[in-house]
């Protein structure tokens, strides 16, 4: 699971004697030539100066391209197995981008092609789950945090109940109820138990934001709930959610692989890294390459998302500057 508390603890680091005098000073006396700089703009500026961000970004752009156009990266068919010729052939590491680059698996299928084609399923599960979770969890958290009272009590108790369910076990139980496990089914199952984290993060940041003076000022002007929520509270409560969601994205991808390995996630004929890792388990002793490449891609993807999340958090958290 993503580490929710991390963003919190990090902000407490500079509790001891921050150079407050300096913190206010750069804002002073903007010369007329200074450009307009929004906080998002500042964060983007900050991101651009982080090598970690660029490593993550290059990796992710590549992964997205592979997911979108796998045909561009390989001409082999991931489902076309040739048991007679290629059964468990070793990788040919000098045959760049060719079908036998990473070798062949138990059924004689090109591992390179499978890794390429498996990207789409993994990325789809990760992105899809994150979108669903952010929309559902974010909305619930926003409502609970903003309105408080019984709405908050109900949402928070439901969140607590779902939070108490073991994530993986719960997802397995849900998936077990479906015979045909398509990508959207896996997304649904992961989201079913995954939304609680975002709800909690969103709720607490909305509570902080709604107490700000600028919200009081908007209320004093006679602004309606919609305006206050969408213009004042949400933009100021979004940053922690973005960070948690980015890091969680990686976690969902690995959760999909875990489920597929256990035979409860995606399954043949869907091509996915989890499915390949699962089917490689019997051959791993003598032919580790069968597992190595899908597992390596999986780790790389998760790593890229977590790194991106870290970079984004550092950029969005002005206290760490």
């Amino acid at each position, binding site marked *: 699971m993503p580490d929710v508390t991390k963003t919190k603890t990090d902000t407490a680091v500079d509790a001891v004697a921050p150079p407050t005098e300096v913190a206010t000073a750069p804002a002073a006396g*903007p010369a007329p030539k200074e450009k307009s*700089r929004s906080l998002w703009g500042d964060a983007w500026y900050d991101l651009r100066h982080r090598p970690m961000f660029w490593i993550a970004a290059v990796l992710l752009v590549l992964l997205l391209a592979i997911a979108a156009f796998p045909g561009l990266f390989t001409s082999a068919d991931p489902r076309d197995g040739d048991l007679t010729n290629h059964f468990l052939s070793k990788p040919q590491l000098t045959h760049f981008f060719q079908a036998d680059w990473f070798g062949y698996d138990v059924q004689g299928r090109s591992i390179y092609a499978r890794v390429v084609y498996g990207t789409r399923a993994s990325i789809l599960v990760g992105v899809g789950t994150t979108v669903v979770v952010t929309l559902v969890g974010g909305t619930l958290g926003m409502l609970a945090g903003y309105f408080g009272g019984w709405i908050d009590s109900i949402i928070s108790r439901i969140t607590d109940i779902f939070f108490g369910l073991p994530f993986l076990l719960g997802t397995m139980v849900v998936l077990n109820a479906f015979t045909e496990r398509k990508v959207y089914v896996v997304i649904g199952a992961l989201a079913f138990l995954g939304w609680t984290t975002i709800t909690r993060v969103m709720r607490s940041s909305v509570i902080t934001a709604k107490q700000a003076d600028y919200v009081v000022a908007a209320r004093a002007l006679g602004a309606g709930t919609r305006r206050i929520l969408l*213009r004042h509270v949400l933009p*100021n409560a979004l940053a922690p959610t973005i960070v948690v969601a980015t890091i969680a994205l990686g976690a969902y991808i690995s959760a999909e692989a875990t489920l597929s390995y256990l035979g409860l996630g995606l399954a043949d004929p869907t091509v996915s890294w989890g499915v390949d890792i699962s089917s490689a388990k019997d051959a791993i002793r003598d032919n580790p390459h069968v597992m190595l490449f899908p597992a390596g891609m999986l780790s790389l993807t998760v790593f890229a998302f977590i790194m991106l999340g870290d970079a984004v958090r550092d950029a969005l958290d002005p206290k760490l500057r």
Partner: protein
Amino acid sequence: MAEIRKTDEAVDATPADATPNVTEVDVVEAATEEAAVAAIDAPVERGEPILQVRNLVKHFPLTQGILFKRQIGAVKAVDGVSFDLYQGETLGIVGESGCGKSTVAKLLMTLENATAGEVFYKGQDITRLSGRALKAVRRNIQMVFQDPYTSLNPRMTVGDIIGEPFEIHPEVAPKGDRRRKVRELLDVVGLNPEYINRYPHQFSGGQRQRIGIARGLALNPEIIICDEPVSALDVSVQAQVINLMEKLQDEFNLSYLFIAHDLSIVRHISDRVGVMYLGKIAEIGTDTEIYDHPTHPYTQALLSAVPVPDPGSREGRERIILTGDVPSPANPPSGCRFRTRCWKAQDKCAKEVPLLAIPERFAGADTPAAHESACHFAEEKDVVHA
């Protein structure tokens, strides 16, 4: 037009109301929303009361339990406050933290619901208004906040912040005209209109407070409630902002309710001053009456405790050092609320609540000491000039 009916009896006639501090309320009974809005937008003569606060009470319930909340008491933040604000004047409200002065501001802004009491704006009780009439009141009463760093949305440009009032009250300025109005407002508060696309964090504290003031001015309000508007600013910038506020008052014919803990600044800007202690007004009068002729012991202690920027007054200046802290507003002392820290306290002070009225000994006398003071043993004492 609204039907304006004069009521013969004063509203809720407690003795505290029968003083020159408060005048009779001409209650406006508006039959329709249109009538109410019309009455709210009607002009008021200079020197006439524009806002009349009567026996205003705000208790915040103290509850226990998570699921089943039950009330175990109440924080009596504001406990029976009455005063008038006249058109074109500045009424200063001073007091220490916890005296309820900021809660009064929130009640007048209808950001909190009053537990009891009325706030009449041009004869209409705003605590009972809703819908368009309430919106019209909100247009006419604006607020300037204490902290210029938190009162501006960091993710909105200055243009959007100052322009937001027009979006909420579109009738004030047509859409195409708003940008120009915002530039005008920036100019009025002494900021470069070119800054319209910048964000709050690109400005210093004093400049941000100017942006807050521009937002408050956008709707052409009649009253601006200033809650500690300069206390977060540097000394050298405070004077700039105070001067700006005085200039704007003349220019736009504004009435100010100026809430602050800095007694020197309040004297500088106010025509009249009310001193609050634990949810009640202890003493109220013109600035000369309060500062040069205080009769309430709390006012005297407060004034004498202010450090004066003159080392020469170190020797010889009389200082009244109060012992202890302000009691909790959840459990205020019986009788006079100041008695636990007062050097004049007698048995009577524990039993009888002193009313805010001109002390009998000064009544009828032509002296600046003859102003309302809620003390059984009111006595003039100049602590400022000693």
